[in-house]
């Protein structure tokens, strides 16, 4: 009796060898709060001493498991505790920039592709440490290469902090495109996200934990393309089965890396994440379902069906679902999303509507560099409102392109892809975005008791 039929082996090989099935990220999440000190040099020294023992073993462990299984692990990432907490006793933006640079150097010298956690939770107000971090955002991201961060400006429990949203908008407009690609304003960001820029070591976690981010749109697109005339229930079922297999690979890799490192295995984020490569596109899945272009009428339906099937398949594949667990529609990081934006088929309004049924928001969309902060803040606040009203995590990652006009293209390269400048509309002033205060929480909060 054979262990596997040749067809079963062939299916897996086709996914791995020809459909770009790989693991997007293995993220080592480390509690860096023990490095809190009252002065900068002691804090930096404590941070390095705390992280080095983990980092010396992390990349070798990831490479060893990739070689053992024969599966590509695209990135090895580090997530640290929100840096705003380390800044509480320090309180100075210049210290925040030094911590940012130290994290960037630690990542680079240990073969870690990205480091996340240059972040603050400000959804109901801004503390001393948050203030220092937010003030430092443009400098910190402009002077680093691997560092990522976010400002969580809204939550279902406490509402939307408009002042934080406005300041995040101003910060983004002061960033180079390469820096803005590593920053998001977020709502309801969970504590165990393995994806950047939302990754950080949240509260309630052990000192170190491994979280895994899967990929695999090419696998699902191939399945959808093979079912040209199938009814919707059959299509949903086929996506669900493929998503199970994709997520299962994440579960295996997470278990193996965690065992190799001797740290607990945390969560698998089952979100299907695209890359700019041909055949690795979420928009490709939506178009294969029967859309002329991503962003056309029917896009919300297609994305809803896709995300629902991915969740149902993924839920069986890993018991500990974490992070954002939906689907990503970053414009620049998905070749067909970028193409749709370039053609004008995909608009910011379409992205907002699609956010109602996925976990992204407006992600990796280019904007002209001279857009007024009111407009950027209002755009961000719309997504914060969706997240709060629907009780889910969403974010906004905008890339200002100096001198850019709608339809222009800016090449960021690598996983970031090709940024298309999108039309933000004709309005120059949006007074609502400048109002102070916090939008109160929604009725979800009341229902929670």
């Amino acid at each position, binding site marked *: 009796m054979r262990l596997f039929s040749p067809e079963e082996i062939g299916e897996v090989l086709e996914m791995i060898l020809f459909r770009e099935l790989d693991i997007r990220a293995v993220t080592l999440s480390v509690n860096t709060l023990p490095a809190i000190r009252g002065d900068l040099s002691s804090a930096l020294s404590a941070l390095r001493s705390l992280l080095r023992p983990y980092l010396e073993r992390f990349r070798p462990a990831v490479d060893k498991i990739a070689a*053992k*299984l*024969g599966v590509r692990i695209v990135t090895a990432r580090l997530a640290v505790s929100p840096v705003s907490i380390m800044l509480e006793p320090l309180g100075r933006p210049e210290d925040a920039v030094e911590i940012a640079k130290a994290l960037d150097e630690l990542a680079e010298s240990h073969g870690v592709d990205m480091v996340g956690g240059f972040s603050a939770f400000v959804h109901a107000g801004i503390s001393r440490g948050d203030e220092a971090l937010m003030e430092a955002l443009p400098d910190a991201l402009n002077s680093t290469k691997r560092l990522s961060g976010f400002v969580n400006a809204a939550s279902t429990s406490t509402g939307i902090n408009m002042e934080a949203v406005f300041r995040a908008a101003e910060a983004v407009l002061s960033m180079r495109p390469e820096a803005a690609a590593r920053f998001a304003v977020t709502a309801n960001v969970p504590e165990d996200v393995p994806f950047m820029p939302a990754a950080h070591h949240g509260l309630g976690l052990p000192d170190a934990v491994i979280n895994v981010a899967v990929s695999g749109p090419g696998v699902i697109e191939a399945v959808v393309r093979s079912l040209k005339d199938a009814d919707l229930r059959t299509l949903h079922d086929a996506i669900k089965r493929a998503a199970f*297999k994709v997520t299962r*690979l994440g579960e295996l890799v997470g278990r193996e890396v965690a065992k190799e490192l001797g740290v607990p295995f945390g969560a698998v984020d089952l979100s299907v994440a695209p890359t700019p490569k041909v055949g690795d596109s979420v928009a490709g899945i939506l178009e294969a379902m029967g859309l002329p272009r991503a962003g056309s009428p029917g896009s919300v339906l297609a994305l809803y069906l896709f995300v629902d099937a991915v969740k149902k398949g993924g839920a069986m594949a890993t018991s500990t679902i974490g992070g954002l667990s939906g689907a990503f529609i970053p414009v620049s990081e998905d070749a067909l999303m970028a193409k749709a934006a370039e053609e004008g088929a995909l608009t910011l309004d379409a992205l907002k509507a699609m956010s109602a049924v996925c976990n992204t928001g407006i992600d990796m969309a280019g904007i002209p560099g001279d857009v007024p902060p009111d407009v950027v803040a209002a755009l961000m606040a719309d997504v914060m409102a969706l997240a709060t009203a629907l009780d889910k995590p969403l974010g906004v990652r905008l890339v200002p392109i100096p001198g850019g006009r709608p339809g222009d293209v800016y090449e960021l390269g690598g996983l970031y892809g090709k940024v298309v400048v999108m039309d933000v509309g004709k309005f120059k002033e949006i007074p609502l975005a400048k109002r102070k205060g916090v939008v109160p929480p929604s009725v979800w909060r009341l229902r929670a008791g």
Partner: protein
Amino acid sequence: MELVVVSVLGADRVGIVASIAGVLAKHNANIVDIAQTVVRDIFSMVMLVDISKADVDIAGLRAELEEAGRKLGVMVAVHHIDVFRYMQRV
């Protein structure tokens, strides 16, 4: 047993099975199962190989098999059996 799946794909020619099996034998890796076909001059082979008594690890074996594949002009891939167990069994 520690099982790995060795898969070979490419244009058919004389000596593919001999060459791949030669690398495995050299390192004391035991072929447990084999399925091989040629369809329209495309050679396809999947082997289940026990490497528990082999004198190299999976990465070392993969490197040598890939080198043998390059000389033959065929693609060789090596994956741990757990990948198939996880993805194809509930």
